[in-house]
């Protein structure tokens, strides 16, 4: 019994083996498939590692012939408006480490590429197809190369490749491509300095891709600044207050913030708060840090501004019976505001530039973007582009400071717009009329003095005015 059983088992195993072998021979699709090893594309983004759709690039496809197959042709297919038109294909076959002699002919037709081998490629060979001058679909996206192949049993389905990430081809990419093709640009870039700092293609790319960072910088400082002004004003008033506690608080606040680097303040806030389980959005925290830092400088600017107002202004307001707050808000601060506008604008410029320090803690602002772009491209041009973004804001503001300063100096000398004299003056003598015409010369201010004196006397005793 036991002997028989054993015999039976062996026979069954042999039968199964034979069946399996026979099946695989008859239907080789599954086990004897031409496997797709990889499909990659060469980056065609200037100064980047991206693969851009709609622009010429090279597709490398590799597959291994397995399971006794004899592959006679391969068809690769691209989705969408991907194209092999005008492509040249290099066919390489490797057997182990040595190169096998495989010849073939590639025919491109739209989004398919057909490679016919002169002799069928046999098992164990690694096939590599390098297709130059092909284009991925211009809309970009994850592209899967699919297709079919023909073996001794007929047409088989080719396994899909892993997706290749591609970037949409925008107007910008086309402009960059145009710059790439320009001999003038090539000559420009051959200069080591120009090519490293002012590479046109990269400049163009950077100017576009830095915009979000630039907007974030602007947003941070524009939101932070009104808070900084309010805080600064409060601490300025505290610092000039007679109350020693208020003054003490203001002095500590201002001195600590002015006496430590903003960089350190950023680190303390960005790493300190999460450790206390206070989690604030990075951008919001950026606004807070910039606002607090700027408020200390503004407090000093306001304090100096307030104290630069002559004592006589306080005395005049007091002698009218004005209270401290009335004096502050209707007399002193309006004058202070005028005086500090240039300094505050300069401080705004500083704060705007200081947002760059937030890149160190991962706020995606201008510096962060340009740093990333530079590390990818190995070129300094993105930094120069960042400089342009800073200057676009700071240069006009610097100009504003100069204009405001000049205008204020002019107004303090008594220049500037003169209102039209009221008709009351026209009733005076001819001298009055000439001054009413109002030539805006400072010396003129003295002239109507003589005439109005005449009219003042007239008003005192009209009957005897001719005696004057």
């Amino acid at each position, binding site marked *: 019994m036991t002997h028989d059983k054993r015999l039976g088992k062996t026979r069954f195993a042999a039968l199964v083996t034979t069946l399996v072998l026979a099946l695989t021979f008859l239907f080789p699709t599954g086990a004897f498939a031409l496997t797709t090893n990889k499909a990659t594309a060469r980056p065609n983004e200037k100064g980047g590692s991206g693969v851009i759709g709609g622009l010429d690039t090279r597709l490398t496809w590799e597959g291994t012939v397995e399971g006794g197959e004899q592959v006679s042709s391969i068809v690769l297919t691209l989705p969408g408006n991907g194209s092999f038109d005008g492509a040249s294909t290099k066919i390489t076959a490797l057997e182990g480490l040595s190169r096998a002699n495989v010849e073939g002919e590639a025919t491109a037709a739209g989004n398919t590429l057909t490679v016919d081998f002169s002799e069928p490629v046999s098992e164990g060979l690694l096939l590599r197809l390098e297709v130059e001058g092909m284009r991925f679909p211009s809309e970009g996206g994850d592209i899967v190369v699919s297709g079919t192949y023909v073996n001794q049993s007929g047409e088989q389905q080719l396994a899909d490749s892993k997706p290749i990430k591609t970037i949409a081809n925008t107007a910008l990419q086309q402009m960059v491509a145009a710059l790439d093709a320009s001999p003038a640009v090539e000559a420009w870039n051959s200069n080591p300095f120009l090519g490293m700092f002012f590479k046109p293609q990269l400049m163009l790319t950077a100017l576009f891709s830095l915009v979000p960072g630039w907007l974030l910088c602007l947003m941070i400082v524009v939101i932070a600044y009104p808070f900084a002004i309010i805080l600064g004003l409060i601490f300025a008033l505290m610092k000039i207050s007679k109350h020693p506690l208020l003054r003490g608080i203001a002095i500590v606040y201002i001195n600590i913030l002015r006496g430590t680097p903003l960089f350190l303040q950023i680190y303390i806030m960005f790493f300190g708060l999460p450790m206390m389980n206070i989690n604030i959005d990075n951008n919001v925290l950026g606004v807070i840090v910039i606002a607090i830092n700027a408020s200390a400088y503004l407090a000093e600017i306001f304090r100096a501004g307030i104290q630069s107002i002559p004592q006589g202004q306080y005395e005049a307001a007091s002698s009218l019976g004005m209270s401290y707050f009335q004096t502050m808000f209707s007399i002193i601060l309006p004058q202070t505001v005028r005086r500090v506008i240039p300094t505050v604008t300069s401080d705004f410029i500083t704060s705007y530039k200081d947002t760059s320090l937030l890149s160190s803690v991962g706020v995606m602002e201008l510096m962060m973007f340009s740093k990333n772009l530079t590390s990818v491209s190995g070129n300094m041009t993105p930094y120069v582009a960042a400089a342009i973004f800073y200057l676009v804001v700071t240069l006009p503001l610097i100009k504003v400071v100069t204009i405001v300063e000049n205008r204020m100096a002019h107004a303090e000398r008594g220049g500037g717009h*003169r209102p039209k004299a009221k008709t009351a003056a026209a009733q005076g003598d001819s001298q009055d009329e000439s001054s009413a015409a109002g030539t805006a010369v400072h010396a003129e201010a003295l002239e109507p003095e003589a005439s109005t004196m005449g009219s*003042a006397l007239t008003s005192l005793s009209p009957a005897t005015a001719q005696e004057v």
Partner: protein
Amino acid sequence: MALLKNKQHHHHRHHKVDVPPAMDAEAAAKLAFMHDKKLSKHAFFEGEHPVVRIEHLNKTFDGETIVLRDVNLNVWNGEIVVVLGPSGSGKSTMLRCINLLETPTAGHILIEDDEITGKPAKEVNFIRRELGMVFQSFNLFPHLTALENVMIGQTKVLKKSKEEARAEAIKQLEAVGLGDRIDYKPPQLSGGQQQRVAIARAVAMHPKVLLFDEPTSALDPELVRDVLNVMKELALHGDMTMIVVTHEMGFARDVADRVVFMEGGVVVEQGLPEDVFDHPQNERTAQFLGSIE
């Protein structure tokens, strides 16, 4: 010129007053003044109280520099008092003590019998609105037009409506001859014009007393006259009490009801202008007036 004539006439009337021999100089001046204002001697001797009463006023700066020593002075309603004296005599400090721009070290100041010394800030503001001040350096608010300078005290302190304040401001600016400059900012005006705006600003508050702190000292000589003319007109209107610290002898002689001479922080002499100018009793007064004239 007509103005001066008027004033001279005014002075002649001073001389007609019989001054009782025992009466001191201040009372004599007061009597003459009452006479001018057609008030009865009876009213004087029964004594309505002075508008400003300064009693034993002392002021020391930094605990060592003594500026005022036991100053006593009364100013009656409607009186024009001109305070003369060399630089450093304490006359400006005395004036600034009256509206508490300086805090007296000791002594009392009473405005219409209300003690103002030693009051909290809030009440001080309330007192100050009754005391108009015209400064040597004008102290106009440079960010406001002439009109706004005259309006701001009325709207902020007296809580007048904008329209009311504006009408009053225009009236006062026209009175000082600046009806055509109401929209000018101070830096666009000459010194004399600025000082006249400052006078309009003070008068528009209708204070009980107008204090002038060397109002013409910062002006070019040719601009002094029209400021003085404005002040003379104010004085002649008769219902304004004025204390004027000045070096303008002509103004004192023409306009003052009483001249007070100070030196070394003390009131050395006071009396009718013609008495003080023509027959100074104190040697130092004579010396000072001599050196001036």
